[in-house]
């Protein structure tokens, strides 16, 4: 029990120190975050490649969706830690897809409703052909009240830009 506690404190320290040193991506940039953030790595933007995204604390949702047949496990990074890393100060996100489609989602959808930024489907990284690199997934099976056009519309895929707004 004592060793578990020490391990937990150590991991917490690693993450807390990481939040203050955002390095530039070493491979192809998958995600650009701008707007009301305090931690950046290029001008006023925070750039992420797949390696950087994969280092963030993970979270999974297993659910049905209208876009893929059957039940799948979607894994991605935790929004809370991600926003903490960026020093997010806003209340709303503008999510922009590769085809320039844009939608606004309140931060509460991640902190209270339980939405995640999915990067893997059934353990395999999501490619552009498979709605990657990032897709918003809501826990539709756990919360049936989310199964409506409003939340289906907010489950945007092929995200490559996030703008943090007031």
């Amino acid at each position, binding site marked *: 029990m004592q060793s578990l506690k020490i391990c937990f404190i150590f991991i917490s320290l690693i993450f807390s120190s990481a939040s203050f040193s955002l390095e530039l991506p070493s491979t*192809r940039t998958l995600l650009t975050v701008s707007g009301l953030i305090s931690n950046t790595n290029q001008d006023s933007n925070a750039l992420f490649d797949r390696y950087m995204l994969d280092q963030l604390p993970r979270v999974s949702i297993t659910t049905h969706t*209208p*876009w*893929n*047949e059957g039940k799948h496990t979607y894994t991605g990074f935790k929004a809370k830690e991600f926003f903490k890393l960026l020093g997010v100060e806003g209340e709303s996100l503008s999510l922009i897809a*590769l*085809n320039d489609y844009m939608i606004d989602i309140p931060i509460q959808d991640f902190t209270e409703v339980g939405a995640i930024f999915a990067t893997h489907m059934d353990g395999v990284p999501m*490619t*552009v*052909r*498979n*709605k990657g690199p990032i897709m918003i997934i809501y826990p539709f099976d756990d919360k049936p009240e989310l199964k*409506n*056009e409003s939340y*289906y519309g907010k489950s945007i895929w*092929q995200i490559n830009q996030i703008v943090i707004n007031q």
Partner: protein
Amino acid sequence: MKGLGGDVKSIVMKRLTSFLLVVFVCTLLASGALYFLANSNSTKHVRTTYESSIWSSLQLQVQSYRFVDYLKRLDRNNPPTSGDVLFYYDLLMSRIDLLKVGSVGNRIHYYGDGRSIRILNYISAELELLQPSIMQIENNDLSSLNRIINKLHTLEPQINKFVSLVNQSSRAYSVEQREQILEEFKLFKYIMLIFISNAMVLFFVLLTNIRTTRKAVNKAQEAEHQIENIAQDKTHFLATMSHEINTPLDRVINMSKLLRTKGLNNEQCQILDTIEDSGTLLLNLIKDFSDLSDIASNNLMLDYAPFNLAQELERSIDFASMRSNPKAVRVLSYIDLTLPDQAIYDNNRLHQIIFNLIDNSFKFTPSGHISVVVRLSQSKAPQWRPALYPEIPASMIQIVIKDTGIGISDSILEMLQTPLDSQVPNFPENKYCLGLYLCRALAHLMHGELSCHSPESGGSEFILELPIFHHQITPINEGKMVSALVNSLSNKNMIILEANDSVAHLMAMQANGLGLNTPLHTYMLSQIPEQKIDYVYIGDDSMFDDLSYINLQKLINSGSQILADYNISKNRTKALASALYKGPLLHLNMGHALNELAHQDFVSSQSY
């Protein structure tokens, strides 16, 4: 005829209202169902699918233009950056994938009679063939760049055709949807028309019904008021009549009593007896009528107070027995001495019931005996409590009055078994039933019950179940008045000489209740028990022989006290008796008589 017409009208109105209500509910449900269908998730999903297919087909067109535009900007001076070509290619292919799968893919299959999916498959296959060339460019080998651009140009008309087909189908869908909405609206309009017209008719019918009901209620209230007035008038009349008749009747009875002291002969005395009896009967009848009237109009008030139960019960039985001929009919009572000594109940009303029941038994019992047995009932006490004693514990007692008379007539049985409705005074037709009817009504008022039946052995049996209330349960045999008596008689022996088995059995019960042992009860004294006999009670000496008298004398010599009934037939018996017992053979009364006999202060022929 008018009444019949009114009934038919009422039935028609009721049926019309029911029919209109059914139509009202049906139209309401139909409009609700229509609204639900128009806004159901499946309808919304179909709409979303069409919108998504248009959006995705346009996205395919846009991404193909963007891809071509990107490829055109590439040359040796401007080589592709790592992964960019593949990225644009994947983006384009993802649009094709989205158009092939899920509900959008299913819809695309039906566009243009299948032409759209064939075009899409062709575009997809052609683009898949470009993948090796794309990988070459990704590796900075631009030799196949122009071929790819040309190929994409040749695919442009196909993509445009595909988008056009999807748009045409969606327009057709819009028209179809509009027509469907118009149809639904038309149907909805008809339903609403039926709904509104039905609601209006229903409103008028209900209004008419309300008016009719109001009239009926007013009429009923008026009738009720009239009934109340009649009941009040009747009560007032009976009260006045009772008061007015009471005084002259009292005078008649008192005058006849006074006349008795004026040295009249036997025949004249018998006439006076008849005058007194008839006067008393008339007085009681008037009181009964008055009480019944009060019960019917809910004006009879009960008076609950603490009483000595055993003493009051014996007093009531004794009083009721006064008018009887003791030679012909004997009255006996047995009281379970474990009943509460002090109890709260309406003594006057219980006295009235006991008096009426015993009086009734006398009427139908020319000879034999009447027994009154009082004991604890197994019935559950009611929740009801007297207003002055809201929290007091309750018990049920059972008073059984049994006679050896001619039994109960069917009309009386029927009257006593008919449910009581205190709202409708239903006086019995048979004049003999009046007292019983009053008893039953009083028992009901006191939350008790009176029932009766004719046992196979003959006669009649009235069973009164009544709640009594008591703070503490001190039994009668431990109470102030009876405990000394029981202590005095306890474990003494008594012989009962009685020809009637039932009477002998009841007397044995009385004696045992007081702690006496009864080693023998028989009709003649053929032998003497071995143990010392303290008392001999002779109820009937008709069967006595010489041996009986010899044995009786032996018992007297050994110190036994002889108590004989006042009405025994033989003078020889009377001569041997220590004392004669006169009056009804009441439980405690007999105990006191025996006790006093033992103390040698008993006066012969004294009545108890």
